[in-house]
């Protein structure tokens, strides 16, 4: 053999192995990548490769020709198309492959590739592409097929159809914030002039003019920006409970009315600057708290995972039919790696169904003709034909999803802070009333009104709200840096109360991929090629893992190939008889101590060459993580698997941790319910598949693990990058600390309030003091929460291996 020089694919950058396809001076790893290059080269779009080095993603094979048949059906395409008017059709696709500037460039040059495309616009943040095309010149199907051919297949699913636009960032909040900021800055400018001008002999006409201008500028704040608080207060009153926005709304309105009275009576310029300041700072807080990631979808249900339509065979022709319209006894086709969306019976072909999505079991199950395949399974291998036995709405997985758990609403947003705030408001009111009575008994009517209103103005619970919003906002940001994305800031509060952690096994504790080791005689390049040729005939996950391990993409023709499912394969190749498979299959005795993980033996012409050892490795940080978690939380392991690795898990977690195997989705749900109801635990569930979805919803905090950013997550409270699971103790600890920071900062702010209250009660709160106190206390709160949470965070992170982010 020649020297094995590693050659990277010009399109995707992966190692080409021996199977390099060469075109010009460029190497490609597979036909798929080559064909993308050819398309781009023909159309003079090779700038794609100049902008970034190897910008593509591995293609393997081109899409089959009838994959997008369903897009020709007007019924389905009407659901996808956003807007149509004569020769302009607008359609928006979600393309998860978008990752670099080359993608951006190529997708926006789509018009050179397809005739009829008028314009394309990429939104990089949401990975969405808006395409405007002329339906007379190109069809929707052609458009999607071209996108697929260049490696940007749009994600088309029922879910994306039903919710066309996700409400990304609440823009009205930003408008309100902008208006409040503008008003606050301008009013402040005039107020400062008034404070200092008053003593220095400012003309009264100018003083008055400044006051009126301030009043005009403050109007949009009162009537527009602050509506954020009025609405929320009004909503809570309707539901018959008091939330923190009610006292704030009262304070804003009283400040404004009091200022109006003062201006009317020509006593001064009022507290308009304070009012605009309160609204401005609190809107910033609200904005910081609402800044959750827009890329991550937290509300995916099973519909996102299923295809939109099936190719139903009716009198020898294929008809694309929307899933909901597939009837009982319809015959449909499913290809390799596609999901089976409804319960069906196998009628043709060899089915190896991977149910990992539903049950968590990672090994595919062989299904014979006439047997039933349940919805949620994924075919691995050849094309199969199935007969539907239930309609889509009645199948197992849809039913599971309609379980009441998914309709339950989590944390209404009412927490301890609201309660504290209510007490605080009540106390302030009492103080105000007492002060009022005192001045009334002294018959000082002016001072009475003065003290009642200023007490309310100074001591509104804004400090509490601000400390909560800014702390949560900063904690969200810190968590995002470590790749934990929360659905909303309320999850921080839930996370701080966790005392039980339930872990899924496959994909959570263990890695998804097998680690392969080879023991035995050195494999020559020829043998390697033979092995790859053999293993590539089998769709068993072990075979695929070994092919990946050998990293060769060459294959030869094979004679008499035979696969005994669950045991191994045998065949003739190069006049040699190969037998590959489990020790019992090849008839080989093994020393027990080697039997760790799964073994695939290699026998050539009756002679044992060696064996591959496959293990689903436990994530390397787990021993350390278990050690940290065990001291403060109760751990539970639930797994859909019934594999032998249970012992290894038990060993890792110690004897006191329950490890439950063969758990169906309902079992997991029940187990968590039991923990919550009988043992009064607050549960955090960590899982990855759709099989964990119900459990994720039932738990107080459901965390979905993802690997890479293209993964799809079920409905959950938080999405965590798998590698960051090691930071779990930090996340929980930090959430608890966030609570303490809020209280500490709040206590600090109360000091300001007491000073303010003192002046207010004696009825002599000068506008100057109010104007200085209010923004100063807000700024101090913002500063303190930021500094405290950052210090605590980096303190906690010291015990973790440093990671450059």
């Amino acid at each position, binding site marked *: 053999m020649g020297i094995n020089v590693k050659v990277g694919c010009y399109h995707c950058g992966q190692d080409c192995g021996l199977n390099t396809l060469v075109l010009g001076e460029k190497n490609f790893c597979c036909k798929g990548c080559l064909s993308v290059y050819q398309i781009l080269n023909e159309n003079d779009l090779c700038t794609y490769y100049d902008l970034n080095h190897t910008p593509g993603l591995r293609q393997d094979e081109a899409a089959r020709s009838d994959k997008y048949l369903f897009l020709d059906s007007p019924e389905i395409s009407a659901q996808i198309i956003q807007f149509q008017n004569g020769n302009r059709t607008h359609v928006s696709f979600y393309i998860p492959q978008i990752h670099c500037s080359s993608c951006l460039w190529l997708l926006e040059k789509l018009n050179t590739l397809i005739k009829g495309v008028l314009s394309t616009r990429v939104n990089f943040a949401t990975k969405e592409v808006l395409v405007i095309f002329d339906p007379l010149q190109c069809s929707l199907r052609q458009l999607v097929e071209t996108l697929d051919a260049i490696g940007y297949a749009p994600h088309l699913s029922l879910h994306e159809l039903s919710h066309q636009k996700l409400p990304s960032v609440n823009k009205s909040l930003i408008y309100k914030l902008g208006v409040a900021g503008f008003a606050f800055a301008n009013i402040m400018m005039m107020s400062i002039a008034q404070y200092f001008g008053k003593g220095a002999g400012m003309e009264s006409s100018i003083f008055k003019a400044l006051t009126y201008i301030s009043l005009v*500028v403050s109007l949009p704040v009162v009537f527009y920006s602050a509506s954020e608080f009025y609405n929320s207060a009004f909503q809570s009153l309707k539901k018959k409970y008091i939330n923190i926005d009610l006292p704030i709304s009262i304070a804003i309105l009283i400040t404004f009315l009091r200022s109006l009275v003062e201006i009317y009576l020509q006593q001064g310029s009022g507290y308009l600057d304070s009012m605009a300041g309160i609204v401005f700072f609190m809107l910033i807080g609200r904005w910081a708290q609402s800044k959750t990631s827009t890329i991550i979808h937290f509300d995916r249900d099973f519909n996102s995972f299923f295809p939109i339509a099936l190719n139903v065979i009716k009198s020898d022709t294929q008809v694309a039919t929307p899933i909901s319209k597939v009837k009982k006894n319809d015959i449909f086709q499913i290809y390799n790696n596609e999901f089976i969306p409804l319960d069906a019976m196998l009628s043709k072909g060899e089915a190896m169904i991977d149910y990992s999505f539903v049950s968590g079991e990672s090994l595919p199950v062989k299904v014979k003709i006439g047997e039933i395949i349940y919805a949620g399974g994924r075919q691995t291998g050849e094309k199969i034909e199935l007969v539907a036995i239930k309609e889509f709405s009645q199948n197992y997985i849809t039913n599971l999803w309609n379980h009441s758990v998914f309709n339950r609403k989590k944390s209404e947003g009412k927490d301890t802070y609201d309660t504290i705030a209510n007490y605080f408001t009540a106390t302030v009111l009492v103080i105000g009333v007492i002060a009022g009575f005192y001045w009334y008994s002294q018959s000082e009517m002016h001072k009475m009104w003065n003290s009642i209103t200023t007490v309310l103005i100074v001591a509104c619970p804004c400090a509490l709200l601000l400390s909560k919003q800014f702390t949560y906002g900063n904690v969200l940001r810190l968590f995002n840096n470590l790749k934990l994305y929360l659905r909303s800031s309320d999850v921080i509060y839930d996370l701080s109360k966790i005392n039980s952690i339930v872990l899924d096994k496959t994909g959570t504790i263990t890695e998804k991929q097998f680690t392969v080791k080879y023991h035995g005689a050195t494999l020559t390049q020829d043998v390697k090629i033979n092995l790859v040729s053999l293993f590539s005939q089998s769709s068993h996950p072990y075979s695929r893992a070994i092919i990946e391990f050998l990293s060769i993409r060459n294959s030869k023709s094979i004679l008499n190939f035979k696969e005994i499912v669950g045991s191994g394969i045998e065949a003739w190749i190069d006049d040699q008889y190969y037998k590959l498979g489990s020790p019992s299959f090849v008839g080989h005795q093994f020393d027990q101590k080697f039997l760790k993980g799964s073994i695939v033996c290699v026998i050539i012409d009756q002679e044992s060459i060696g064996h591959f050892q496959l293990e689903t490795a436990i994530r390397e940080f787990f021993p350390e993580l278990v050690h940290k978690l065990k001291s403060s939380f109760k751990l539970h392991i639930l797994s859909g698997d019934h594999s032998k690795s249970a012992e290894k898990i038990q060993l890792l977690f110690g004897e006191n941790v329950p490890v439950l195997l063969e758990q169906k989705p309902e079992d997991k749900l029940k187990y968590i319910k039991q923990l919550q109801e009988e043992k009064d635990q607050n549960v955090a569930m960590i899982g990855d598949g759709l099989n964990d979805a119900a459990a994720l919803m039932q738990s107080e905090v459901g965390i979905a693990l993802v690997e890479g950013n293209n993964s799809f997550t079920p409905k959950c409270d938080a999405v965590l990058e798998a590698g960051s699971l090691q930071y779990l103790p930090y996340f929980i600890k930090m959430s608890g600390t966030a609570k303490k920071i809020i209280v500490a900062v709040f206590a600090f702010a109360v000091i300001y309030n007491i000073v303010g209250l003192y002046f207010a009660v004696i009825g002599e709160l000068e506008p100057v003091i109010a104007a200085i106190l209010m923004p100063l206390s807000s700024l101090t709160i913002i500063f303190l929460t930021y500094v405290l949470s950052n210090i605590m965070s980096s303190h906690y992170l010291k015990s973790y291996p440093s990671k450059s982010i």
Partner: protein
Amino acid sequence: MSVIIILLVVSILIAGSFLIAFLWSVKDGQFDDHFSSSQRMLFDDKKSLNKKN
């Protein structure tokens, strides 16, 4: 001294026009996607790059 009032009104009007510009840009989606716009302006239609192929 009344000139100061005129100056004040003018300055608020200028500040107001910036506010409108800000609101407009938010509405237009300028802050939705930080990556695309910054990259898009760097793309240029030079055909010469393909000559080396």
